[in-house]
């Protein structure tokens, strides 16, 4: 059976695709920025000597790492409002969930990078009189950041793909718009192929950049 491709019929809706793509980018970048902040604080809590902070951070991380993002989205949109009374805007629920989700993973990446730095580095910094803060910012972090960069980019690529799930709570991202176009034109193959193509166009440069950075880092080690 040969399928008769007909991109003509979805062409009038190109602005919906672009708008959807824009929304996907906004949710990705927004949740990554918030996730970095959350991840940083969580990582600091995990590395601090405070047992209570440590436990809170670990519980948060495990809850978000051990439930599917889809489940989290549904819970925050449909269940959470019942708990606190009132309702929650789907865009707020989407951004909140995505940020908390990626923050839990970033925290682990940051923590892994920091603890992978040899204890001797911190001792050498201390031995020339550096404060713990100077040792962290001038000696440990520059080395740790370099080591965590590939995993960080990888997680961020996954995050872009994950934003497509916000379409289930009616946030008008790229996946949602593709479904809208399909509803209008009854052209699922074209609609969803264009969607897939747009995702690839966005992420291929990123994965290539990540590979390139990883190779560069290996050479300089």
């Amino acid at each position, binding site marked *: 059976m040969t399928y008769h491709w007909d991109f003509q019929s979805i062409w009038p809706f190109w602005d919906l695709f672009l708008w959807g793509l824009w929304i996907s980018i906004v949710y990705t970048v927004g949740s990554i920025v918030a996730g970095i902040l959350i991840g940083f604080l969580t990582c600091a809590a995990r590395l601090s000597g405070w047992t209570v902070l440590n436990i809170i951070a670990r519980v948060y991380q495990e809850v978000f790492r051990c439930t599917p993002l889809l489940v989290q989205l549904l819970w925050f949109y449909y269940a959470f409002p019942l708990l606190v009374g009132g309702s929650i805007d789907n865009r707020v629920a989407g951004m909140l969930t995505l940020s908390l989700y990626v923050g839990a993973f970033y925290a682990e990446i940051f923590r892994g990078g920091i603890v992978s730095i040899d204890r001797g580095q911190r001792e*050498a910094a201390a031995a020339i*009189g550096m404060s713990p803060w100077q040792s962290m910012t001038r000696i440990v972090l520059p080395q740790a950041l370099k080591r965590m960069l590939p995993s960080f980019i990888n997680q961020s690529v996954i995050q872009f793909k994950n934003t497509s799930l916000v379409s289930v709570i009616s946030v008008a991202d790229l996946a949602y718009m593709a479904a809208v176009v399909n509803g209008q034109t009854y052209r699922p193959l074209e609609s969803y192929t264009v969607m897939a193509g747009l995702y690839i166009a966005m992420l291929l440069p990123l994965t290539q950049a990540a590979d390139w950075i990883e190779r560069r880092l290996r050479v300089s080690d």
Partner: protein
Amino acid sequence: MAIHTNAPILETVGLRKSYGAHEVLKGLDLSLDRGEVVALIGPSGSGKSTFIRCLNMLEMPTGGTLRFRQKEVHPGFRDKGEQIGIGTLRRHVGMVFQHFNLFPHKTVLQNVTEGPITVCKTPRKEAEERAMHLLGQVGLSEKHAAYPNHLSGGQKQRVAIARALAMQPEALLLDEVTSALDPELVGEVLAVIRKLAEDGMTMAIVTHEMAFAADVANRVLFLDQGVIAEEGSPDQVILNPQNPRLQGFVARFHG
């Protein structure tokens, strides 16, 4: 030879260290005087590293007192009243490690200037001039722009010594600084330390190099099971030991 006055730079009184129930240091008294070189010898696990690391509080003592120039050191980073903090102590007491611990993301020159610039707020130009001078002293001027990973073990350790000296320390602590080196590279590092001793640098040296200890030290301490089991001049301790465990220990090095 070294100018030898009686003002102790570092002093411990009844210094103790336990890990849980395991007491590693059982009340050690040491007085490291200006210009003096003290060698610490002893069997593996006797507490040499733990002790020398207590002297700049990389390891926190669990009992006793540590004094730097007659002032008690307290376990906080900053000075507190009459007591001095760990930050001050470490600014004046340098350490060189067995495994060098150079900063791999910084060049040789940056490794040496890092302390003066970050900790002492020395102007960069001045710090670099002093660093180049020190690198000259350890024979590594031409390597100033290299990264540590491109150096041999002996070169790394000489950079580490220059890094410690850049802080213009009043005393240096060296923990088995040649143990991680290939045998043919040991000599170049020992030569640098010998020169420092001749110039009057105050040092505490943990070493397994008996001949070197006998040669460079004013005083030798034999540490055994967490106590100073014998103490005296190199002639007494290494060449003419009294303690039977020390006799056995020294005999092993003479083959």
